């Protein structure tokens, strides 16, 4: 059993966690929920001991485990950990050696290691991934690999920080199955996540964290009985498995305001792989806010890089407003808001960032006001929160006259409030003459934001979902 008793944590006089009391039993699943920045990751890191040992800070109170206090030396065999950011969660260049790594570190013999990798890979149906380079994997594939690596030593305790943030529906089901099995084997699992539907049947307790405090603890029974009530009260999201039910309708546009983007016979593959993207015909216009969804590794991120000219397609044509553009011209007309927004901010103040050094006109200022950036103009962009950085990036795109704005997984790791704010921001933006494309697994977000969603599968667009055709059925092959 693990127990936290009156635990406080502060860093540079900032109180991050206060009076945390928590008991975790073997074979129990505990879910930490709460808004971004409420302290969920800090709770996980305190249990893991990374706070204060690696991240520093001041921890008071009692943290007891049934065994000795954690020592970093036996770490991997005690705790299986999955971190928030799938991008920097691996040490080895390829999936195979990444899976082996934890076992190698405890000195397991070669035969056992190979056997275990075999088992895990079968369990996850991940044969295709085994010999791939980590850097070439899609976001969801990386997150799945991190999960697999964490289970290699079968530790008694698992700490998972937003493990579903980049996963598609099938992968989430796989994650659910894994957690259930771990629970049945008697491991304790602690998960911090915004998506809750896959955890409802698994979790023994839900712990709502607000502003560094435990606001309430909900038992499985209570949650089952009062789910809707509790969800509204504590602003929890995604309590039931989402389905695509688009609520936004198309936008009326004059012909003069119309922006179209078409692709015909588009083909692309990464070096030495078989054909990945294979699209017969695709017609997008700014009458819709367009969503792209589909399974992990289907080619969504690749497709938008093709459409924005970031990578070169091998065959086919891309037409912007009916004209065939060169790759350079495509780049000039489009803007991709990346998931690592901090890599797209280059100046020392938000104002410079947005204006590229020129003066802001009255019209610009109105736009900034509507993006709620006016108060932040003098701040250093790198010191802003994730959502604020996203808004700055969008503002730079709008003010530089971009016509196509694409966002890749804009809501991964976002709580309900931030997701809603982003959605209403997009609703506001669509009045402008721009074409918006959003790649996302977040069906709740797509439902409240898009009027057309393309579902991708193995590099093709298999279904087009619109508000009046919910189950979709338009195949393009």
């Amino acid at each position: 059993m693990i127990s936290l008793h009156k635990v406080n944590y502060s860093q540079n006089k900032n109180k991050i966690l206060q009076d945390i009391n928590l008991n975790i039993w073997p074979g129990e699943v505990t879910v930490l929920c709460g808004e971004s920045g409420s302290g969920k990751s800090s709770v996980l890191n305190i249990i893991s001991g990374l706070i204060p040992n690696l991240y520093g800070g001041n921890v008071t109170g009692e943290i007891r485990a049934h065994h000795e206090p954690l020592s970093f030396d036996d770490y991997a065999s005690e705790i299986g950990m999955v971190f928030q950011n799938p991008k920097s969660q691996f040490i080895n260049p390829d999936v195979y050696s990444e899976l082996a790594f934890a076992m190698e570190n405890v000195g397991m013999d070669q035969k056992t290691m190979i056997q275990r990798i075999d088992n895990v890979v079968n369990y996850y149906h991940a044969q295709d991934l085994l010999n791939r380079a980590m850097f070439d994997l899609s976001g969801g594939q990386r997150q799945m690999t991190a999960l697999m690596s964490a289970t290699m030593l079968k530790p008694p305790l698992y700490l998972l920080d937003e493990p579903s943030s980049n996963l598609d529906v099938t992968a989430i089901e796989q994650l659910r199955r894994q957690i259930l099995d771990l629970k049945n084997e008697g491991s304790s699992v602690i998960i911090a996540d915004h998506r809750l539907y896959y955890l409802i049947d698994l979790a023994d307790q839900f712990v709502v964290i607000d502003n560094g405090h435990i606001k309430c603890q909900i038992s499985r029974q209570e949650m089952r009985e009062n789910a809707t009530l509790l969800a509204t009260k504590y602003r929890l999201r995604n309590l039931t498995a989402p389905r695509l039910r688009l609520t936004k309708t198309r936008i009326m546009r004059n012909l003069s305001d119309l922006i179209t983007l078409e692709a015909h016979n588009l083909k692309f593959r990464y070096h030495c792989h078989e054909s990945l993207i294979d699209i017969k015909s695709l017609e997008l216009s700014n009458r819709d806010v367009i969503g792209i969804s589909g399974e992990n590794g289907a080619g969504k991120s690749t497709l938008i890089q093709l459409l924005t000219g970031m990578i070169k397609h091998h065959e086919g044509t891309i037409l912007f407003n009916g004209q065939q553009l060169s790759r350079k011209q495509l780049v000039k007309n489009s803007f991709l808001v990346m998931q690592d927004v901090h890599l797209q901010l280059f100046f020392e103040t938000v104002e410079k960032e947005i204006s590229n050094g020129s003066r802001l006109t009255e019209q610009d200022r109105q736009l900034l006001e509507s993006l709620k950036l006016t108060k932040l103009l003098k701040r250093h962009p790198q010191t802003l929160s994730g959502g604020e950085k996203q808004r700055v990036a969008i503002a730079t795109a709008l003010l530089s006259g971009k016509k196509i704005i694409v966002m890749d997984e804009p809501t991964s790791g976002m709580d309900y409030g931030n997701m809603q704010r982003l959605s209403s921001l997009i609703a506001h933006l669509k009045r402008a003459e721009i074409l918006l494309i959003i790649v996302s697994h977040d069906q709740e977000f797509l439902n409240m934001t898009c009027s057309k969603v393309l579902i991708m599968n193995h590099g093709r667009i298999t279904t087009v979902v619109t508000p009046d055709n919910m189950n979709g059925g338009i195949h393009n092959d």
Partner: protein
Amino acid sequence: MRFNPLTKLVIIVLATFVFLANVSLMYEIVFIVFLGILLLINGDPYAAMIYWLIFSLLLLLSVTVFKNIHDTWSIIGSFLIIGGRRILPTIMAATFAIKHTHVSEWMRSLQRMHVPFDIILPLVVVFRFFPTLTDNLKNIIKALQFRGLISSKLALIVHPIRAIEYVLIPMISSADTVASELSSVVITRGISHQGIHTSIFGDHLRFIDYIVITSSIFFIAGRWLID
């Protein structure tokens, strides 16, 4: 085929020896061919070809254009060419060492050589740090192109000062997070486990390793016997 990390270290030592010693042209040629073959076997035919090509070019230039040294240009030119020929084996050996050997294999060998853990651990993080930074750099360059701050990758080379200015801010802001994220991952994957670490690729010396190590001894002896 896989080489043992030990063999790779031997080759590094050998290349350093050749770098320091004065060897004849014949010796130099044989050695470059030898390193190229190692790269071929290691699974990098591309690198082997390119290095051989570079060497042939340097050699050709030094016996033709820069045969007679008479003015400043030819002095600078022959200086560069001789320098290039001198450093090439070391670069080839380094390529041979870095490619296709996994973190765990290096760790295991270093541990066997009783290198203390406090040295191995940061080495692992540092080695992993560069690929992530490169990946970030790629994304930053994409972002710069979208922003119209550079028109193509070429612009980074044409305006190096401006490039550094743009790239540096996001790079630095990400470096800190990357470093701490990587450290937490290595720790949670149990790198500091006190006992013996193993490697899934095995760690015994194979026939090919013995051949290469023996040849290296011949190379060192040959410097005095033949040259």
